[in-house]
């Protein structure tokens, strides 16, 4: 079909006429098209899209006139109306003393020494890593009152945190007052943001890492060790006391029991002997003379039995003639 058309015989003159007429038409079409495109493009400056966490502030002749929520919207084209988009939901994070650097899947933290190190009230140095979270609470204030909102929060946070730390002693910042520092910092930053009418809401201030500076860490560890050592000494002493006192108590019981036993023995012996005496006395009284003689003779007999050598002498000096050593020798 196309072949026939190509070889269709046409008068050359005629063709020229047709051609010039066609050209004129084509030019007009192009111009109309350009105008339509231009007008269309111009009108498109009035179309805008607002993301789910954002709002758009519409300005009429530069002055703020209304706020619109997420979705596709239309306003008058330039120069009559324009808009600014502000993210009001996302919580922004500011890092003090460190930076998060994420490359692909791995996240790493870089310590920023000059930002982390602060002077405490007792003129020591402490290293603090903190996070400040904030979000835009008033998009109009945020967009029209302040410039570089992020920097503003960052600088204010840094200065407030230092201010707080400078009011406290090192020991307190490290231990008891830590939470209070975070709370007070958040409160104070908020106060300043309100003063600036920055439209910023501080959500949270977290003190991530509160430590002594690296060069003095061993000294701090030593204090902790010393605390352990102290406790160990005390525990050892306690162990000693726990060991020695019950033993002594046991010994005391033994001493008392021995004494009681002794006393009992004494009394028993005495009672027994007294009873024996009484019984014997009773018998003795029945026949006093005989018993007396018997007792004496009995004892003399025993005495004689017991003695090793018996000597009968006329005078008491017989002993002078006996070699005692020889006589008593093999005993």
């Amino acid at each position, binding site marked *: 079909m196309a072949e026939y058309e190509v070889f269709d015989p046409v008068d050359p003159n005629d063709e020229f006429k047709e051609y010039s007429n066609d050209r004129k038409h084509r030019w007009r079409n192009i111009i109309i098209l350009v105008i339509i495109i231009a007008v269309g493009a111009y009108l498109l400056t009035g179309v805008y899209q607002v993301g789910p966490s954002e709002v758009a502030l519409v300005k009429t002749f530069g002055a703020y006139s209304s706020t619109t929520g997420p979705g596709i919207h239309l306003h008058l084209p330039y120069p009559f109306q324009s808009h600014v988009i502000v993210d009001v939901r996302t919580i922004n994070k500011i890092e003090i003393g460190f930076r998060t650097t994420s490359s692909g899947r791995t996240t790493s933290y870089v310590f920023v020494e000059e930002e982390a190190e602060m002077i405490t*009230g007792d003129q020591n140095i402490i290293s603090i890593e903190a996070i400040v979270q904030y979000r835009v609470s008033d998009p109009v204030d945020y967009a029209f009152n302040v410039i570089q909102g992020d920097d503003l929060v960052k600088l204010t946070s840094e200065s407030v945190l230092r201010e707080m730390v400078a009011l406290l002693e090192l020991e307190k910042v490290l231990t008891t007052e830590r939470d209070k520092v975070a709370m007070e910092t958040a409160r104070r930053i908020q106060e300043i943001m309100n003063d600036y009418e920055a439209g910023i809401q501080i959500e949270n201030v977290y003190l991530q890492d509160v430590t002594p500076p690296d060069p003095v860490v061993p000294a701090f560890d030593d*204090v902790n060790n010393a605390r352990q050592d102290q406790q160990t*000494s*005390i525990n050892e002493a306690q162990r000693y006391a726990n060991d020695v006192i019950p033993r002594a108590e046991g010994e005391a019981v033994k001493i008392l029991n021995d004494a009681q036993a002794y006393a009992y023995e004494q009394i028993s012996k005495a009672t027994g002997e007294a009873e024996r*005496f009484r019984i014997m006395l009773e018998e003795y009284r029945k026949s006093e003379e005989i018993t007396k003689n018997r007792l004496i003779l009995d004892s003399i007999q025993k005495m004689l039995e*017991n003695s090793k050598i018996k000597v009968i002498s006329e005078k008491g000096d017989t002993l002078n003639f006996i070699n005692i050593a020889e006589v008593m020798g093999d005993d």
Partner: protein
Amino acid sequence: MIEMTKMTIWAVTIIIVFLGLFFGLTSFYIVEQTQQAVVLRFGEIKNVRTEPGVYVKAPFIDNVVKFEKRFMIYDIPVERVITFDRRTVLADTYAIWRIEDPKRFIETLGTMEVAMTRIDDIVYSHVRDVIGTYSFSEVLSIQRLKILEEIKKRSVNSLKDFGISIIDVRLKRTDLPQENTQAVYERMKSERYAMAAQLRAEGEKEAQKMKAEADKKVSIIKADAQKEAEIIRGTGEASATNIYSEAYSQDIDFYELQKTTQIYKDSFKNSILVIPNDSPLLKYFYNIK
């Protein structure tokens, strides 16, 4: 002819539209919400616009200079400042400022760059002067707020004439120079080691005390027991003595007899017994004739 007229109408329309656009663009200007503007006619200030909106100006003749209306941050570079007690601190300050009076601003400073150098000079000199009248420990104390307030007040006064309003001046950092930092570290270390030594010594002390107390308790317990024991023994002996004397007192002669004969029995073991020949024991011995 008709063709020509048509062409002319087209051309005229286009020219009118372009001229209209051109004049529109040159004789109106928009001041944004975040801006303020000064209208200059051959360098002379004709008008100041601080409210946003659309305004008319004479095309070509009038020149509109726009300025920022929002709060701006000026971060002043770190400077060495000497305190009243001759200690050097690195003061890192920043100022929050805005152009309060665009007319004044353009008259005295002209551009933002000039303004920044001026702010730098003025705020820094106040920082130096004010901190110079306080001691280092005061800079670190609650006084800091007072110092900042004073710097702010002075800066506000000095910059008022330039149409600049200082909203805030704050100290971001007050650090010690490197050489002082080392000294602080050394001091912190020695303080900690001293503390550690004290803790250990206190532990020793406590331990000694506890041991001594335990020893004392042991001695007391034993002594008490000993005392009690002696009393018990004494009581026992006393009772025994009482029992003996009660029994023996019934007949002292018999007691003597019994005891004496008992002594005889018990006390001559393995001894040499010399019996004189006139002993009553031998009275029958010599009777045999």
